[in-house]
C-alpha cells in the first residue's frame, strides 16, 4: 500500500460512510439541515481535537480536556453571574466568556509546565489534572449548574445560513493547519514528537514549545466550553465527562501516531466527522446507541491496525 493510499484511507472511508447512508436514507440523511446538524455537533469535539492533534504529534497526550471544558464553563458562568447578577446579559456575558477562555489557557499552561519542568509523562500529569480540574469545577458552585439563560449567541447565531459554532470551528481549523505547516511552532511540534533529543540538540527550546502546545490546547478547550455552555444555556460541572477519549479517538482515526511525529489537521477533521456521521447515521437507521459504541470502537481499532500493517510492510520492503 503506497503512502498516498494510506493517507487517503480515512478520507475514503468517510466518503464511503456518507455515500452508503445517503443511499439508504436519501430523504432524511441527505439533507442540508442534517449535515449542518452533524457539523454543529462536531464543532465542540473538533475544536478540542485541533489542540489534541498538536499534543499527540508532539508525542504527548492530554486527558484533562474534558475537565477543562467543565472548569472553563463553570468559571465563565460564575463570572457572568458575579458581574451581571441572576440574569446576566451583554458585557457580563463577554467578561464571563473571556474568563472561561483564560481559565482553559491557564489550565493548559499548568499541564505544560508540569510536564516540562518536572519532566513528567504527559499521561500522568493530565491524568492528575483531569481529576483536579473536575474537582475544581464541582467545588466552585458546590456541584450545581449555573444558569445563564441569555447566553444563546454561540448556539443560535447564524450567518449566511451557517451556525456560528461551525464558523468558529472552521476558523480554528484553518489557523491550526496554517500554524502546523507554516510556523516554527508547528515544525518544532513535529520535530519534538519525532525525536525530542534530536530536537533539543538542534537548538529547539523544547520546554517552551511544549508549554505552548498544551496552553493552546487548554485555550481551545476553553472556547469549546463556551459553546457547550451556550448550547445548554447553563454551565455544568459534569460537562465533558469522557470527552477526551472521543477526541483522542478522532485524532488517531485521522492517522496521528501516539508515539509522535505524525498527524495532521485534515486527518483530524476526517476522524471527527467520521465519528459524528456514524452516530448520526445510526440514529437515522434506528440502530441502538449501544451498537454505535461497538461500531465506533471497532473503527478505531481497524483504522490503527490498517495503518500499522501498511507501515510494517513499507518498512520490510525498505529493509530488503
Amino acid at each position: 500500500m503506497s503512502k498516498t493510499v494510506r493517507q487517503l484511507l480515512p478520507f475514503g472511508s468517510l466518503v464511503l460512510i456518507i455515500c452508503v447512508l445517503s443511499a439508504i436514507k436519501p430523504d432524511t440523511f441527505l439533507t442540508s439541515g442534517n449535515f449542518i446538524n452533524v457539523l454543529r455537533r462536531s464543532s465542540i469535539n473538533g475544536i478540542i481535537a485541533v489542540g489534541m492533534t498538536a499534543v499527540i504529534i508532539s508525542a504527548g497526550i492530554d486527558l484533562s480536556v474534558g475537565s477543562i471544558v467543565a472548569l472553563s464553563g463553570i468559571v465563565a458562568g460564575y463570572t457572568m453571574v458575579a458581574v451581571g447578577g441572576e440574569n446576566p446579559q451583554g458585557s457580563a456575558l463577554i467578561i464571563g466568556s473571556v474568563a472561561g477562555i483564560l481559565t482553559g489557557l491557564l489550565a493548559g499552561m499548568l499541564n505544560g509546565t508540569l510536564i516540562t519542568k518536572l519532566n513528567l509523562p504527559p499521561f500522568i500529569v493530565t491524568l492528575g489534572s483531569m481529576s483536579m480540574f473536575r474537582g475544581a469545577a464541582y467545588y466552585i458552585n458546590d456541584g450545581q449548574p449555573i444558569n445563564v439563560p441569555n447566553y444563546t449567541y454561540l448556539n443560535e447565531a447564524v450567518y449566511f445560513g451557517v451556525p456560528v459554532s461551525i464558523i468558529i470551528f472552521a476558523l480554528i481549523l484553518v489557523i491550526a493547519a496554517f500554524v502546523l505547516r507554516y510556523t516554527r511552532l508547528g515544525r518544532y511540534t513535529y520535530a519534538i514528537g519525532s525525536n525530542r533529543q534530536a530536537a533539543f540538540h538542534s537548538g529547539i527550546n523544547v520546554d517552551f514549545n511544549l508549554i505552548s502546545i498544551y496552553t493552546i490546547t487548554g485555550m481551545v478547550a476553553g472556547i469549546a466550553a463556551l459553546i457547550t455552555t451556550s448550547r445548554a444555556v447553563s454551565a455544568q460541572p459534569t460537562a465533558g465527562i469522557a470527552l477526551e477519549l472521543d477526541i483522542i479517538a478522532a485524532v488517531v482515526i485521522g492517522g496521528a501516531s501516539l508515539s509522535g511525529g505524525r498527524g495532521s489537521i485534515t486527518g483530524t477533521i476526517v476522524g471527527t466527522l467520521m465519528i459524528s456521521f456514524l452516530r448520526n447515521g445510526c440514529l437515522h437507521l434506528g440502530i441502538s446507541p449501544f451498537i454505535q459504541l461497538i461500531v465506533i470502537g471497532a473503527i478505531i481499532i481497524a483504522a490503527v491496525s490498517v495503518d500499522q500493517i501498511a507501515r510494517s510492510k513499507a518498512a520490510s520492503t525498505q529493509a530488503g
Partner: protein
Amino acid sequence: MIPADRTDQQTDTGVALRMTGISKRFGPVQALADVTFTVRKGTVHALVGENGAGKSTLMKVLAGVYRPDEGTIEIGGCDHQFNTPGAAIDAGISMIYQELDLAEHLTVAENVFLGAEIKGNLPFTMDLGAMVDETAELARRFSFDIDPSAIVEDLATGDCQIVEVLKALRRNASIIVMDEPTSSLSESEAARLFEVVRGLRAKGISIVYISHRLEEIVDLADDLSVLRDGCLVHSEAKTQLDIPRIVHHMVGRELTDFFPKRSASIGEVRFKATDLASDYGIRDISFDVRQGEIVGMAGLVGAGRTEIARTIFGVDKKTAGTIELDGKHLSITSPQQAISSGIALLTEDRKRTGLCLELPCSWNITMPNLAAIGMKTLISPAKETLIAADIAGRIAVKWSSPDAPVDSLSGGNQQKVLIARWLLAASKFMIFDEPTRGIDVGAKKEVYTLLNKLAEEGKAILFISSELPELFGIADRILVMRRGKLVGNRITKDTTPEEVMHLAAVEES
C-alpha cells in the same frame, strides 16, 4: 593484507570452539570476511581490535543473534548452526554483555534461574529455597563470595558481573564471552573479576575476553586474536604477548590516498577551552583549535570525549572552566545558545540525538536553521526545499527527493543529511563526534574530503574518533583522553598510532 600468523593448536587441551570462514555483510558493509577463530579448552582468549573491527559482530554470530552468510561453527567437535540465541545457549555459549542483562528488582538466585525456575510442589509456583541453595552451591564450587538472596539492585557492579557468570554456569556454559567486563569496574573490583576468570579457566571453561585495556589482557590471556576491518589479522599464544606488537596489528593499515591532502592554512586561535569540567566525569580540560585546523580527539569508549562535546555545546552543565570563541567569552547553557554563538555539534548517535527519522530530509536539514534562513516567523516550504536541496547537492546526498523521510536513506546518506544541517548553519567551530561511525568506506572518504574543505574555509574543527587511522589521516593535531582527563596533545606528524594508543589505553603506573 598482512598474513595471519596463526599458531598451531598443538596443545593437549583440545579445541572448545572453532569458527571457520565466517563472513557477514550488512548491506554494502562487509562486517566480517572469512574469519577463522579458534578457542582452546580451558583458556582465556583475548579478542581485540578497534571499534568497528568486527568483534561484536563475530560474537553476535557466535551467540546466534546474527546468522553468518558463510562459515561454520564447531563446539566441542560438533557442528552447530544457531538460528536463535536460545540454541547457542543450549550449545554452551553464554554472553556477558557490557550492559548487563539482569532483572534489577529480583534476587541473585532468581536472576540465576530466570527462565528456568525450579518448580515448586504446587502448580505455577517456584521453589525459591531450592534456587537459593543451588545458587549458593554453584558459588561455593567456584569460590565466589556472593549472597544468593541479595537483591541485584543493591549489588556493586562487580558483583553483578558475578551474577552473570553464575547465570552462565547454571546453563552449563562451556564458553563464556565477556564484552569489556572491566569498563565500569574500579581497580579492586577488576582484580576480583580476574580471579573469577582464572577460577573459571581452572575448571576447564573457555573465556573469550574482549577488552580495550591491553595491560589487563597481557596479564590475563592465554591466547590473543586481533580483528581489523572484519578480518582476523593476527593470532598468537601467551608466551609472545607484547603490547607494542598488539597495537601494531590493531592499527596498522595502509593510509595513503584514502585521505585528502591537507591544504588549509592554519590561522589564529578560534576556539579555546580552559579548565573545563562537568559532573559527567571530565575535569581540567584545556585545549584550543585554530582557524583552518582539524584537531583530532582519541580515547577509549568512556574516556570522556563525548562529554567534552556535550559540555561545550551546553547539553551537560559546565561546573568549571571557560569557553572562548574568537577571543570572546561565551556562557553557554543550552544547544540553542551554542548554535547561535556559532558552534555546531554533529552528535555521535545520529538516530538518537541527530535525526527525526520519519520527517522529511529537508526539514531535518533546516531544523536548527529556520531563523537563519529568514523563516523566523513564516516557513516557505518551496524555498525551504530549494535551500535544503542546494546544500545537500554540495555534498552529493542521494535521496529520491528532499521531501523523502530520512529513514528511507542509507546510513551514509543519513549522516550526510546531518552534515548538511550543520553546513547550512555556517558555524565557526564545529565538533564532529564519530562522524564516520557505521557508514561505508566510500562515504567515509567523502566525509574526510568535506572536513578538509571546511577547514580550508577557515572553520575550526574538533574531530572525535575511535579510529586511529582516520585521526592520523586527517587531523593536524591529536588530543588523547583517558578516564576524563586530557593526557596527550601531539602534533600528528610527531607522533605514532602506537604512542596514541598507549596513552589512551595504558594506565601509567
